[in-house]
């Protein structure tokens, strides 16, 4: 019965918990990308003047099916993540039409309260990032076939590096709340593992931020040339 099925899908995914679970699942996909991308990027540190990194980039390009498959999944996840975030934010704003004159937070972390700010900023950064390193539009000396070169010359500009460092700090903040929140939204919460989950979220978020920031810092410090 097709009628029933569309009905339950809509019911599930437009419910408050359904929307949260979509945020969680798409967040997980994007998180997976962030981790994979970092692992790829860290090859920049292999002291072979970028051979491995460029080879990795070439490998991806050679397998267009995989690359585009991943890109489509990511794009879909991103669109869903952003679209539902906007929907949630609008609903949440509407749920309290008159604001408190005085509001004190007791438990909510800074990260949790600023998801709706860190999120759009990271999105803006992603656009810039694509213009910078994928299409090269805003890159000073972009070379389609030499990723290593692009990274080094790109980060030799202090302004570009600063943008990256700030953006990665925001990403860390976003993940700090996002990772734990993702588990909670999908129902993963157990008194035995909660402390581990909280600490683990913080550790992974920090590790990712440090890992990404290490690249522009290394370039600026002339450790990478």
């Amino acid at each position, binding site marked *: 019965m097709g009628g029933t099925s569309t009905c339950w899908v809509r019911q599930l995914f437009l419910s408050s918990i359904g929307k949260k679970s979509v945020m969680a699942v798409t967040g997980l996909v994007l998180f997976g990308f962030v981790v994979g991308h970092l692992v790829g990027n860290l090859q920049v540190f292999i002291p072979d003047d970028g051979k491995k990194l460029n080879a990795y980039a070439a490998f991806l390009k050679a397998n267009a099916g995989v690359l585009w498959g991943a890109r489509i999944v990511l794009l879909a996840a991103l669109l869903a993540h952003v679209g539902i975030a906007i929907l949630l934010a609008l609903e949440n704003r509407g749920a309290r039409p*008159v604001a408190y004159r005085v509001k004190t937070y007791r438990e909510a972390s800074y990260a949790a309260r600023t998801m709706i700010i860190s999120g759009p900023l990271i999105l803006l950064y992603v656009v810039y990032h694509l213009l910078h390193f994928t299409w090269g539009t805003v890159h000073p000396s972009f070379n389609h076939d030499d990723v290593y070169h692009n990274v080094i010359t790109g980060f030799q500009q202090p302004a570009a590096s600063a943008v990256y460092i700030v953006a990665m700090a925001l990403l860390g903040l976003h993940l700090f709340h996002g990772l734990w*929140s993702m588990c909670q939204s999908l129902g993963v919460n157990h008194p035995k593992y909660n402390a581990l989950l909280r600490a683990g979220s913080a550790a992974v978020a920090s590790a990712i931020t440090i890992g990404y920031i290490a690249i522009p810092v290394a370039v600026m410090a002339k450790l990478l040339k």
Partner: protein
Amino acid sequence: MRITLHIWRQKGPHDAGRLVTYEVPDASPEMSFLEMLDVLNERLTAKGEEPVAFDHDCREGICGTCGVVINGIPHGPRAATTTCQLHMRSFRDGDHLTCEPWRARAFPVIRDLAVDRSAFDRIVEAGGFIGVNTGSAPDGNSIPIPKKTADLSMDAAACIGCGACVAACPNASAMLFVAAKISHLGLLPQGQPERFDRAAKMVARMDGEGFGNCTNTRECEAACPKEIGVEFIARMNRDFLRAGVADRPEKATAGGA
């Protein structure tokens, strides 16, 4: 002790409302917060000014009627305490206290600090029960329930329905209230037959009442006078998702003889 109050005065649901300042120069640390408001109201009445409307009943922290947001915190600064059980010793001489009603679209203000929380009743009506009729019950001891399970269920059942979770949530979400009821019943063997259906129905009604969405800030847990944790929200999420993904759609059945 001298207390300066900035109290939200609002004639009715459609009035704009504003903060009005009152002085209580002689509050006693042994008084409860509501007794301090009583003293203020008696004086206002004697002066011919209309007293501040606020909801309250049992004044022992169990009925869930009272609720004032004091300096931005529902039920005030003391943890695990309802407004009626908050004593003035929690404040200092000379303090300024801003008193506001629970603020949420789903809780329209009736007057001053009193709000309409009937949305909660409608959520329970949607499925917050075990569907047994009077008289059909088996012996109370026929289903053993592990002590830990009964205790956890009781932790959730301790909810007094005050709405502080909604008031505290940056998004005015009612997740903690609904999760508490779903968990209370869903943990017990008696609640199993309707467990997933209950979650689906109660969440649907919650959404329909205009509450916001959960963003896992845990403000609700911090505000809850009965210390109900977000663990129950995770449990509700599981039950709800399981209902949405795995439950068979309801079929119209033909009536039998």
